[in-house]
């Protein structure tokens, strides 16, 4: 066998042919790809783990419904997004907002307390977004994906996604400034 990794389509075909354990290749491929996204979407790493597990299992169960197995990643991503939304709205809580501050970047990078506050600020600011905006923002700024990649994953036009990310940033800025 050649040293190249098997394509998603080839792995899907093998799973559907009965080699169930081979599904693990897809899990090992896409869990690292989307773990960060899931955590930012769920707001909590344990919730994200549950959501990812559930998503993979559903993907397995519904694998015959994957009409373009060469795009398994994008198909799985949508299942995962759905699970993250479910888990987040089921278990996510909105606590009373504590002051979060958009601080100027002159703060020393070693200041752990400052970093913690900034991280919390972003986490709470993400709460203010609609699900669509949060997804787009996370893909862009947390995952660092290009608009082109995002268009492929979300099956949306780049200009629509750009608008969504811009709006998300506006919402977040408004939230962060209101705390000052």
């Amino acid at each position, binding site marked *: 066998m050649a040293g190249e990794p098997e394509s998603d389509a080839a792995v899907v075909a093998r799973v559907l042919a*009965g080699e*169930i*354990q081979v*599904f*693990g290749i897809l*899990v*090992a491929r896409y*869990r690292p790809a989307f*773990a*960060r996204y*899931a*955590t*930012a979407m769920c707001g909590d*790493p344990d919730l*994200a*783990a549950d959501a*990812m*597990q559930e998503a*993979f*299992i*559903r*993907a*397995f*169960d*519904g*694998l*015959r*419904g994957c*009409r373009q197995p060469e795009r398994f990643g994008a*198909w799985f991503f*949508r*299942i995962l*997004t*759905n699970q993250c*939304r479910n888990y987040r709205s089921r278990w996510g809580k909105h606590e009373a907002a504590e002051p979060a501050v*958009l*601080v*100027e*970047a002159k703060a020393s990078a070693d200041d752990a307390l400052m*970093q913690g506050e*900034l*991280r919390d*600020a*972003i986490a709470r600011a993400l709460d203010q977004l609609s699900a669509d905006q949060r997804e787009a923002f996370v893909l*862009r*700024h*947390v*995952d*660092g994906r290009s608009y082109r990649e995002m268009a492929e994953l979300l099956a949306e036009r780049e200009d629509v996604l*750009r608008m969504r*990310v*811009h*709006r998300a*940033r*506006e919402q*977040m*800025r*408004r939230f*962060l*400034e209101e705390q000052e």
Partner: protein
Amino acid sequence: MTGGWSVEAQRYLDGEGPPPTDADERARADAFLAATRGYATWLRVPGPQIDQAVIEAVGRSGGQAVRRSVWRWLVESRLVVRPAVAAAAVLALIAMSVGLTLLTRPPNRPTAQPPVEGGGGAGTGTVLVRFELDAPGARTVALAGSFNGWSDSAITFSRSPETGRWTVTVALPPGEHQYLFVVDGERWVQDPAAHAQVRDEFGQTNSVLVVGPRGVVRS
């Protein structure tokens, strides 16, 4: 739409332009980027141990492509459901899932699995919803709603030769949708089977359907 960030700043934040010329705007943009980056690197993410959990779960399910049972919902519901209502709801779900094969799970199967979401939306989070209209004299019927910018031509119905009824099936995300049928490009008509009818404030009435993850039960 303009908002707190200037167009310059938005391009800079997208990594597609130079920093904003205004110093304050630039400082805010840099702070925002730094905070977001800090957040991103700080995230503790699920690691490889969940891979194993998935493999074990998958192996346990017997590896068959799933056909899901509506009866599962009735039997395993955690809620106290009055039998008459439950039966009615189950009948409605069955009526809704024309085209799905319903199988009862063989008793020795270890895992219970839920009904397919929304009558076959292919696991993407949207739900297939069918719209119908009796309009024998119509030449064209279209579906205009909040989900398609109220276009009177983008989603068209087709007429069934047997029943003469106009139908179309659309994938919609869960939530509320307002819509009307557009007959012959000019008459905007309510859907009698919608959940409710509400004023649109232009002097007309919109039909409302609230789509759940399992689909809809019509009025």
